């Protein structure tokens, strides 16, 4: 079975040049960095906050913070990983504000391994995404990922949607590599389990009619 290949390509070699120019006060160089990563930050923020207005605010605040703190960027990691770390913190802060009654933390490890054990093992239709319209599919995927604990969906979105490596994800979230791997496995298995009811092979099954 072929493995999943990372989505994000290595950043162009001129990224460091842009960072240096922005550090020296060149706002157009910073604008280039915004153009390069605004879509990614918006996606990450939406996945974490599950709220579009919050995601818009996170995009603005994360880039502003990055600009104001460029002098502190040590260049030991990629600019993008550093920016993601800022964006994730902003997004979690907004989520906490909206849900003060619930503790929101990347350290939460709320359930046991049991919650991720596969129960549904029916095979899926060969092209499951074609069972639904584009709009229906987005609704299903959005609703499904919303049900994951924030700590799981944050790891999933960074690793599997944005294509960061395990090491970069650990770095951006300040987690250990085993913690990233454990959350990623459980996020993947829980999403798989929940999507099975929509995508399982309908031949003789009880999926969508």
């Amino acid at each position: 079975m072929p493995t999943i290949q990372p989505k994000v390509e290595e950043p162009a070699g001129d990224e460091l040049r842009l960072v240096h120019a922005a550090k020296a006060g060149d706002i157009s160089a910073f604008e280039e960095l915004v153009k390069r990563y605004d879509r990614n930050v918006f996606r990450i923020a939406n996945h974490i906050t599950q709220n579009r207005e919050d995601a818009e605010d996170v995009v603005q605040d994360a880039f502003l913070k990055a600009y104001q703190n460029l002098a502190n960027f040590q260049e030991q990691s990629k600019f993008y990983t550093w920016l993601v770390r800022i964006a994730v913190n902003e997004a979690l802060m907004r989520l906490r504000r909206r849900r003060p009654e619930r503790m929101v933390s990347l350290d939460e490890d709320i359930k046991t391994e049991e919650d991720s054990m596969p129960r549904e093992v029916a095979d899926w239709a060969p092209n499951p995404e074609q069972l639904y319209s584009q709009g229906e599919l987005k609704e299903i995927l959005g609703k499904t990922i919303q049900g994951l604990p924030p700590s799981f969906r944050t790891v999933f979105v960074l690793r599997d949607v944005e294509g960061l490596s395990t090491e970069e994800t650990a770095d951006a979230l300040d987690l250990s590599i085993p913690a990233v791997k454990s959350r990623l496995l459980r996020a993947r298995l829980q999403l798989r389990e929940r999507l099975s009811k929509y995508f399982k092979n309908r031949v003789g099954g009880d999926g969508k009619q």
Partner: protein
Amino acid sequence: MTCSEFLKELTDYLDGAMDAQTKAELEDHLQWCHNCFVVCNTTKMTIEIYRESHLYELPDDLRGKLRTAILSRCKCSGESKGES
């Protein structure tokens, strides 16, 4: 190899992050365990569907609006720093 041992290695297997011997053991398990084969295959599909879903794309008009706001806030912050 048991099914729970297989599941523990599933993430590394899908990411291709393992040595040849462990990979061979997992693939041997997949040969005869239909349930693990289905779980492995549908987990891979889950990742691919999310990756290709374009969920939460940033529309062009909003993108322009956000960029203008970001740059104007950056300029203000630069100016106020210069004044202090």
